[in-house]
């Protein structure tokens, strides 16, 4: 007994020493000793970026991978916990969650050698927010004072004949560059989550070269991140290499990263198994079936949840779906565990709330029994609503959503003794067009992957009146008021408690049914060590080493 305890203790202490050694090694890198720096190039899977490589104009995963390596924002997120910590920022101070004084660290430079100053941030943000520039991520700056002066709305939408009026100003009045290292940001309303938001790629700084010649910048992006751009061959690869003057505290060990474009994840998977590709984070369904990847890649794969949730949403604007009891009945009719076991081999845990696991501020089981399988109660409730006709579920089917949607439909049908049909839509573009136009007549698949790790990001965009992703046009003044209160909370902790309350209130209305939490299955080659997949399902390029 005693000896076993000693053995355990020894094991623990060894682990600590090893871990400490690893940390020390990385830390030394900053000091310039560079003992654990390797000359290795690793290859990782990406999809072809769909947008120019400009941080404020790219929101999809392929481009995001590249931009993440090229740019570092004021804050960054811990690859294990997702907690924000200062990166370019030395400190972010506020007393009222409205006026933030951001001090920058010394010594940060862009890859062309020019310094990263407060102006680099202010110019980049103003550029992205200014509506005539037509940047995708403009809406991330809504909170900053003066946003409405630089970003005007088209009165009849982009389809109508009218043009959006020319904005009155080119710069947001809430951004003040005090000196090279100090930026003062004034928000229109207090917003306690603002510092967390700053790690999102839309908030990255831009060098002067961007404003001088944008086409040249797009062909050869210049960032301030741990890796600098080397070359790009469209639909083949993007090559980045370690930026030796990177000012971050932790520096990457690998010398270069080849981001290799694959047309299909199946082909990439074969390459990982054969050792031709070092890392991929989307193991294809063919290898998930029966958990084949665990035998193909022994000890070289991981399955974990990330900051994403899969829901099915109601078009609340459709009078047929306005009764909350109907929505709750359908939620209780879904057998989430059966779907998880039958379709996903137990890899995607049933959702018990609107916020994904691992998000700071989340509490489990917010949904309670509304998200559990209760066929009798569901049927009773459903029959009382007098809903006519078959239940219809719809989704795009170009990214493999058909199977689980159909399974959900079957469980609903079994519980409610009502016909349930799955209506496939061929392409995501077509599907989104109908959603954006608020022309949905069926319950539709919706999902959310966090932009930044905060409970706030799961609620405000989706469940607040006028939220940027509130496609079902759900509106509840009480939820809005609680969310506003949470935004204005003096501290993150107090804010989180209010967000949790708002989440419970929204769940009681059930404008969207949580189905499962997204999980990522990643696999890597035999040469990689210290593989950490961060909450954004990216390989942490700082910690990965090559043996």
């Amino acid at each position: 007994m005693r000896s076993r305890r000693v053995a355990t203790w020894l094991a623990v202490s060894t682990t600590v020493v090893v871990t400490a050694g690893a940390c020390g090694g990385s830390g030394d890198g900053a000091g310039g000793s560079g003992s654990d720096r390797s000359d290795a190039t690793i290859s990782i899977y990406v999809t072809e970026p769909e947008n120019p490589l400009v941080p404020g104009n790219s929101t999809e995963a392929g481009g995001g991978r590249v931009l993440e390596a090229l740019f570092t924002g004021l804050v960054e997120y811990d690859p294990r916990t997702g907690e924000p910590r200062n990166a370019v920022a030395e400190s972010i101070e506020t007393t009222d969650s409205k006026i933030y004084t951001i001090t920058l660290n010394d010594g940060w430079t862009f890859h062309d050698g020019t310094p990263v100053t407060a102006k680099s941030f202010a110019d980049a943000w103003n550029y992205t927010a200014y509506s005539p520039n037509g940047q995708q991520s403009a809406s991330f700056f809504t909170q900053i004072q003066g946003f409405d002066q630089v970003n005007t709305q088209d009165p009849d939408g982009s389809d109508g004949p009218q043009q959006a009026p020319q904005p009155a100003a080119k710069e947001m009045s809430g951004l003040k560059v005090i000196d090279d290292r100090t930026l003062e940001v004034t928000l229109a309303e207090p917003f306690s989550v603002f510092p967390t938001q700053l790690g999102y790629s839309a908030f990255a700084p831009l060098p002067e070269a961007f404003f001088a010649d944008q086409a040249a910048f797009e062909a050869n992006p210049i960032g301030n991140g741990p890796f600098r751009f080397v070359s790009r061959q469209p639909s083949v690869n993007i090559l980045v290499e370690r930026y030796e003057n990177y000012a971050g505290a932790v520096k990457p060990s690998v010398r270069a990263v080849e981001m290799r474009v694959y047309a299909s994840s199946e082909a990439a998977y074969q390459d990982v198994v054969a050792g031709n590709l070092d890392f991929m984070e989307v193991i294809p369904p063919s290898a998930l079936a029966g958990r084949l990847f665990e035998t193909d890649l022994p000890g070289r794969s991981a399955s974990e949840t990330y900051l994403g949730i899969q829901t099915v949403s109601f078009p609340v604007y459709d009078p047929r779906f306005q009764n909350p009891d109907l929505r709750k009945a359908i939620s209780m009719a879904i057998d989430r565990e059966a779907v998880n076991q039958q379709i996903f081999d137990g890899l995607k845990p049933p959702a018990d709330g609107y916020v994904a696991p691992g998000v700071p501020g989340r509490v489990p089981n917010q949904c309670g029994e509304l998200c559990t399988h209760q066929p009798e109660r569901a049927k009773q409730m459903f029959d009382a609503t007098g809903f006519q006709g078959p239940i219809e579920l719809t989704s795009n089917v170009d990214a493999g959503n058909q199977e689980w949607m159909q399974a959900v439909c079957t469980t609903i049908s079994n519980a409610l003794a009502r016909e349930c049909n799955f209506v496939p839509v061929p392409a995501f573009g077509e599907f989104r067009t109908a959603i954006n136009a608020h022309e949905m007549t069926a319950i539709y698949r919706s999902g959310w992957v966090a932009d930044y790790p905060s409970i706030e990001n799961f609620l405000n965009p989706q469940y607040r009146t006028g939220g940027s992703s509130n496609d079902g046009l759900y509106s509840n003044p009480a939820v809005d008021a609680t969310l506003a209160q949470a935004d204005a909370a003096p501290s993150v902790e107090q804010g989180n408690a209010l967000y949790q309350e708002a989440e419970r209130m929204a769940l009681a209305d059930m404008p969207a049914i949580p189905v499962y939490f997204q999980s990522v299955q990643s696999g890597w080659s035999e040469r990689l060590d210290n593989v950490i997949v961060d909450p954004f399902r990216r390989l942490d390029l700082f910690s990965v080493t090559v043996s």
Partner: protein
Amino acid sequence: MGRYVLRRMLQLVPVFIGATFLIYVLVWALPGDPFAAKCGDRPCPDAYITAMRERFNLDDSVFVQYGKYLLGLLQGDFGETFSGIQVSELIANAYPVTLKLALVALVIEAVIGLTAGVVTGLRPGGYLDNLVLVSTLFLIAIPVFVTGFVLQVTLGLRWGIIDPTVSAQADFSELIVPGFVLGSLSMAYVTRLARTSISENRRSDYVRTAVAKGLRPRRVVGVHLLRNSAIPVITFLGVDLGALMGGAIVTEGIFNIRGIGGLVYRSILTKEGATVTGVVVLLVIVYLLMNLLVDVLYAVLDPRIRYD
């Protein structure tokens, strides 16, 4: 002959204009807004959509859009993708790869198919004939993606003879297995065509005459019989080469070959009208030229055929 070729070349012009216009309109008529899916699970800002539409002339009527596109095309400008990459660059990268793959597939199907066809055609009903009959039936019955995956997994992963995917350089040696997969179906057809043709012509008068003249069997088969029997096979191979150069979406996908098929497929999904039209225009021209080449080859093979 020269005038015939010239006339056929002139015919390319209206076909070119008609085909580009049709493709342009078809891409334009695809359901869904090209920018609806650009921003993930949230709608894109109106300002972004307005700016992009202006940049790609999407607010004009489809005729004006097409006119602008054609004007650019005549000046050698294939346009650019929504991510700002020149379409000409994409085509220049992808086309040589597709061409190589098509050639490899064509050589494999022609060599193996013709050999098997001749051998079985000369001895119909034998053991070999039955074996080839069964194997061609087998090949025809299996979809390409099954052949592709099976070969990739057995040769690439289990036995480690080849890399499971093709590198960006796409050397000929890497393309042998994908080429075989791609050509396997046509190989079966070539075999069947050649076999039928040979066994039919074997009984024809001119072969009997040649044999009666006392020519050596090798010359009878190699020159007299094969030349006449090759016509249907050449027709088939010509059409097939045109199809192969149109890219092979499935085979390219399995082996991650950066060819033209995958490019068109991705561009259709993302509604990149400029890319789709640019590539398809090129394919149309290649297809027409291939057909012309086949027609000219007829005259070479069969002196009775004359154009002029």
